[in-house]
């Protein structure tokens, strides 16, 4: 904390800044050489021209049916230890209780033999039923008992040809990307292989991950299938042999169940048909658990390992049955993450609800208290034992944090001594072990410490001698009130300084009104106490200070025109106590917008204004909010336009992603040393060089807000967004003079940090301000082998001064298991966390190297990990692009990243937009980054209350997430796309008139205005539902997403369509083409 060690570091040039991307040139290739080794760069040709998805590709090898080989070898490594040996009854329960569907979904299969489009998958489970009793594969083939269905083969063929083939051709014209050949080639052949893949791997993890089961099943429960009567479930389990008999009666009962899901299907299928096997993807959702359930009863053995074989053999029969089988368990999110998914065949990869992070395989009691994944998340929920193992997996290892998140409940501990490990200073946490009453063993460095006398008393239960019941040991996230040892100086007051650009350009945009109005409205809501201070600086070619001293009749403006050597015109009363001078402050805010109404000054001296702000705040520290509307043109830090508009769309490398001057970075580091953070609001229509200006916030732990083309009259949506964001900004929680330290167990080391901060020493992040909307990411490596460790822990401790002058420490601790097999590592991969970490790494890479490098690195990351999965985990080689279920979204996310504003090429992107997207990728917490990368698409013209959430007496409908493809849009519907910072409502040309009148209050499609940003408050059920849904989406994030209602003629349609990442654009591959590209690389 001392300022001295700062200056030594700050003085130096570029490299010494620990923050700088330059500091860690290896940043992007963390876990080993593998990352970059796979350099085969994207073939531009490939990227440009349509991928040749010719039949040759399909017929040649990959899709030849492969004889079923047992792949149980892959399984033994699984951590099954914790699971009790499975008796028949026991084994049945987990899937049973978790999902009501399986039971009901299977029976219909029996009942509906005819080739309804829905049936092709439903047979599958049925077959398994039938097959179950006899155990062995051949018998099962021969004895499909009460089925109305004839031999196996025919069925399989029949299905592929009739429903899927027919539809594709009907509308293939519309979808250019994928030639029909594909379907033909794939359908008949595909099923066996993919089924194969599914069964062998699938069944085992299913058994072994009982903990995950309830979790992952939830989505299924909410699924649109009408909830089957619970009474159905008990029936299927009725032990092996009778199974066949049991099912037929069930059939009729639940027959209606499976069909509804089809309903959304048909229209979409008609529109685009890239994947004929599409529907099976989700329709089969619940089958596998059921199949598994069926399985167990027949299993006499208690040895869990013995389960897979019969299952597999059994399925070898039905393998020929139907292609849809392959998708069997996909959507149900079967508890296993390792089930093999053939990405080329399965289209419906998106889960029904939000993507849930994997649950670490920890003992139940530990997992219960583990840190919440929204706060602390690891890319791998199972930590590899050695670095070489990690290198083999080719997955990045890192953590994503959202340490200062607004939490609804947070235990706060006041105690004079905070118990910490004596050698590594870890805070005592739920994952330490108590050797006896008086000693505890640190879970990070394994040192044995004494339990202090005070800790023996538990203030919660008012009992003595139970140190393990203390709140510190019961909560993975908690806050301490720090004793005075944690303060180098008295806690600082909340200090806010507003720096406003008042040049002609700024006044023209009219933003001053909004800022002053927001401040006036929220002046009492600013976090702080009676000590809160506030100050104002405005600048154009000169710097204006405002003397707000108590007793003055009106604010006094002091102009400093010497911008070369900036000084403070008066030592005090520029920063004044807000409570005492509120009148004057309000006075100033009311008069400010008019004061510069007629200014002709076009120049803008941002650099000197920032220096003045730093001087003003350096004694106390605090927050500077800078509002800037153009490129700074005077004094230090003046910048020149570097963007060539003609190059915006070029596929060549993007220049000028790095700062043009280090002035802003240096100033930011000085600020950081004096506990000053600078938040930048950029409201501009032209290029502002955010790459340079952004440094001021980046290194001082501020935040950046960017409102392109802001104008009071011309862009009302932008104004509303700015207003809402400002309100949140002014009133949100804030922590001052903060530091954060992330500790991890011995053997692991953190080598790169992502986010806005300055790294003061190896693991100490200096955060002059911390706000609840800031996220961080770190990359880790394994320095020492973690042999004979069951688990490792990570602890993030954030020490900050609250706006009330309290010094507090927020501690988050997370515990993860250590594993020693590759398959376990893959099973624990968290695809969202991996994607976000890769995005952060790619941002660094594109700044230090080049954008194309970063793009290649991302593509290679997916190729490498899938290759590694294929070669190391899969024991038999199968055709297709195989991915474990937990990583099935990985290629999709990578493609989404490649098409994200930050990394896309070939599409016209303004440099500032790009740089801002990069800032956000590094700085936003995971949940928001994911929406930016992969927006969520919902169909909203048919919202129902079915499966709706009830939040504080409001009913919020929960439509399912659709794939981001134009084929999903139907002209007679209305679709809502939630892209994080913006929400689009797309109205189809033939949209249900009911929706138009009831929700939008418009008579017909033509009446939809081109710039509609509001949903009218109509008193209809549809309107209420839609508004409740949009409102609910908005509530979930701190910033305010604008709603754009768009139709075909809207100018914003282009940006809406750009988010359709699964589709092909002029310059980018479609999802399927991308998969083919990956497959080529993988199978090389």
């Amino acid at each position, binding site marked *: 904390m*001392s300022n001295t060690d700062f200056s030594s570091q700050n003085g130096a040039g570029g490299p010494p800044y620990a923050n700088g991307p330059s500091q860690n040139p290896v940043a992007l290739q963390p876990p080993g050489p593998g990352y970059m080794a796979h350099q085969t760069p994207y073939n531009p040709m490939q990227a440009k021209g349509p991928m040749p998805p010719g039949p040759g590709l399909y017929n040649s090898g990959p899709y030849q049916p492969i004889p079923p080989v047992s792949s149980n070898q892959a399984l033994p490594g699984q951590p099954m230890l914790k699971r009790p040996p499975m008796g028949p009854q026991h084994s049945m329960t987990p899937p049973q209780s978790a999902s009501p569907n399986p039971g009901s979904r299977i029976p219909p299969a029996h009942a509906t033999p005819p080739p309804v489009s829905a049936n092709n998958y439903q047979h599958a489970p049925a077959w398994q039923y039938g097959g179950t009793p006899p155990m062995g594969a051949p018998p099962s083939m021969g004895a499909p008992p009460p089925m109305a269905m004839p031999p196996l083969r025919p069925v399989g063929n029949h299905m592929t040809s009739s429903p899927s083939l027919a539809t594709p051709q009907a509308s293939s014209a519309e979808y250019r990307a994928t030639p029909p050949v594909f379907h033909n080639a794939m359908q008949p052949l595909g099923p066996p292989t993919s089924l194969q893949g599914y069964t062998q791997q699938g069944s085992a993890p299913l058994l072994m991950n009982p903990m995950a089961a309830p979790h992952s099943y939830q989505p299924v429960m909410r699924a649109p299938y009408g909830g089957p009567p619970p009474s159905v479930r008990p029936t299927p389990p009725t032990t092996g042999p009778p199974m066949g008999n049991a099912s037929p009666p069930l059939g009729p009962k639940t027959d209606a169940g499976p069909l509804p899901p089809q309903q959304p299907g048909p229209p979409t299928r008609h529109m685009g048909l890239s994947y004929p096997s599409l529907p099976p993807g989700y329709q089969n959702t619940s089958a596998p658990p059921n199949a598994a359930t069926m399985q167990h009863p027949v299993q006499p053995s208690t040895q869990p390992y013995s389960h897979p074989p019969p299952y597999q053999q059994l399925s070898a029969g039905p393998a020929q049955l139907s292609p849809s089988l392959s998708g069997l368990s996909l959507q149900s999110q079967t508890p296993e993450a390792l089930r093999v998914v053939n990405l080329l065949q399965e289209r419906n990869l998106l889960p029904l609800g939000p993507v849930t992070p994997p649950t670490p395989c920890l003992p139940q009691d530990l997992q219960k208290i583990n840190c919440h994944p929204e706060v602390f998340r690891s890319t791998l929920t199972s930590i590899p034992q050695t670095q070489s193992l990690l290198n083999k997996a080719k997955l990045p290892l890192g953590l994503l944090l959202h340490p200062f998140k607004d939490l609804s409940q947070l235990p706060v501990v006041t105690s004079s001594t905070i118990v910490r490990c004596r050698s590594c200073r870890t805070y005592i946490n739920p994952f330490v072990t108590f050797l006896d009453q008086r000693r505890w063993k640190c879970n990070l460095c394994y040192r044995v410490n004494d339990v202090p006398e005070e800790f023996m008393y538990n203030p919660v239960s008012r009992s003595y001698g139970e140190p393990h019941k203390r709140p510190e040991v019961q909560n993975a996230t908690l806050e301490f009130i720090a004793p*005075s040892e944690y303060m180098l*100086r008295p806690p600082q*007051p909340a200090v806010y300084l507003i720096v406003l650009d008042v040049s002609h350009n700024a006044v023209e945009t009219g933003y001053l009104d909004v800022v002053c109005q927001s401040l006036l409205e929220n002046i009492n809501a600013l976090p702080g*106490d009676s*000590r809160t201070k506030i100050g104002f600086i405005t600048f154009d070619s000169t710097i204006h200070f405002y003397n707000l001293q108590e007793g003055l009749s009106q604010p006094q403006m002091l102009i400093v025109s010497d911008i070369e050597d900036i000084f403070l015109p008066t030592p005090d009363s520029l920063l004044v106590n807000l409570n*005492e001078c509120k009148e004057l402050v309000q006075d100033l805010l009311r008069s400010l917008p008019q004061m510069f109404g007629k200014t002709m000054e076009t120049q803008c001296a941002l650099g000197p204004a920032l220096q003045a702000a730093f001087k003003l705040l350096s*004694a106390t520290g605090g927050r500077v909010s800078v509002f800037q509307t153009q490129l700074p043109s005077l004094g230090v830090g003046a910048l020149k336009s570097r963007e060539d508009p003609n190059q915006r769309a070029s596929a060549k490398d993007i220049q000028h992603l790095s700062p043009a001057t280090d002035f802003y970075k240096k100033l930011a580091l000085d600020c950081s040393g004096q506990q000053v953070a600078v938040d930048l609001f950029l409201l501009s229509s032209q290029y502002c060089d955010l790459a340079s200006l952004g440094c001021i916030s980046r290194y001082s732990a501020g935040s950046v807000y960017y409102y392109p083309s802001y104008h009071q009259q011309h862009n009302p949506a932008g104004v509303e967004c700015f207003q809402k964001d400002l309100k949140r900004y002014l009133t949100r929680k804030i922590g001052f003079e903060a530091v954060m330290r992330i500790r991890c167990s011995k053997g692991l080391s953190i080598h790169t940090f992502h986010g806005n901060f300055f790294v003061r020493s190896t693991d100490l992040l200096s955060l002059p301000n911390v706000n609840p909307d800031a996220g961080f990411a770190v990359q880790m490596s394994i320095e020492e082998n973690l042999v004979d460790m069951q688990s490792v822990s990570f602890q993030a401790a954030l020490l900050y001064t609250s706006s009330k*002058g309290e*010094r507090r420490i927020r501690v988050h601790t997370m515990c993860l298991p250590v594993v020693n097999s590759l398959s376990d590592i893959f099973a624990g991969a968290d695809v969202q966390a991996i994607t976000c970490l890769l995005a952060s790494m790619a941002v660094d890479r594109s700044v230090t190297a080049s954008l194309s490098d970063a793009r290649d690195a991302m593509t290679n990351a997916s190729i490498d990990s899938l290759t590694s999965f294929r070669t190391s985990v899969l024991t038999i080689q199968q055709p297709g692009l195989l991915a474990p279920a937990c990583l099935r979204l990985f290629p999709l996310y990578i493609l989404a990243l490649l098409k994200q504003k930050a990394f896309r090429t070939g599409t016209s992107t303004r440099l500032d937009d790009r740089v801002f997207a990069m800032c956000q990728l590094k700085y936003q917490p995971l949940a928001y980054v994911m929406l930016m990368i992969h927006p969520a698409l919902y169909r909203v013209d048919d919202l129902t209350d079915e499966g709706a959430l009830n939040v504080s007496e409001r009913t919020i409908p929960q439509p399912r997430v659709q794939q981001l493809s134009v084929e999903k849009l139907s002209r007679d519907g209305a679709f809502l796309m939630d892209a994080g910072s913006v929400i689009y409502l797309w109205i189809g040309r033939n949209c249900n008139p009911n929706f138009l009148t009831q929700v939008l209050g418009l008579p017909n499609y033509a009446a939809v205005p081109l710039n509609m940003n509001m949903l009218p408050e109509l008193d209809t059920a549809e309107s209420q539902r839609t508004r409740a849904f949009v409102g609910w989406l908005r509530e979930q994030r701190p910033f305010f997403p604008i709603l754009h209602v768009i139709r075909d003629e809207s100018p914003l349609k282009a940006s809406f369509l750009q988010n359709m990442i699964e589709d092909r654009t002029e310059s980018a591959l479609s999802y399927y083409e991308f998969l083919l590209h990956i497959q080529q690389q993988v199978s090389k």
Partner: protein
Amino acid sequence: MVLLTMIARVADGLPLAASMQEDEQSGRDLQHYQSQAKQLCRKLNAQSPNRCTLEAGVMSFHYVLEHGVCYLALCEAVFPKRLVFGYLEDLQTEFHEQHGKKVSTVSRPYSFIEFDTYIQKTKKTYIDSRARRNLGSINTELQDVQRIMVANIEEVLQRGEALSALDTKASNLSSLSKKYRSDAKYLNTRSTYAKIAAGAVFFITLIVYVRFWWI
């Protein structure tokens, strides 16, 4: 010029309020003084003199103890003592009035940090040279500053250390003497055993001699 003001509870040295130094530009490193002030607050107890000035190089600490609360200010040594004590008295009156009753109950450091606002205002009136003249005349007979004890900060801080050093030395001595005692006992027993053994050998030799050669 008052550089640092601190109000702390005497019983355990818990800081209650403090004023941020507004003087960072002058480049003085106050960190050192800050920690000295903290140590000092912990050293003080009910027996300490009620008013005292402690010299610390070019600076001096001035403190006032009242109602179990210590009011401490750091000034340049040349700053008039009379003013400092006037200032501290002023703070004391106000603080006691506002928070006096709650002092014994709080446990969080800097619980009354909001008192900082008042401290700063008061400080301004005392530092302002014009106001100072007026105050000076009012306070002339208020304080008999001459009688205030003057000591050196280092001595005060080290007094405790010297005592503890003495204590450790004494305990060392006693443990050493204990060790000596047990060692001596052990040696005694050993020499006794040696004597007995020697006698036994002599007698055995004698018996053997008598048994084989005499007869």
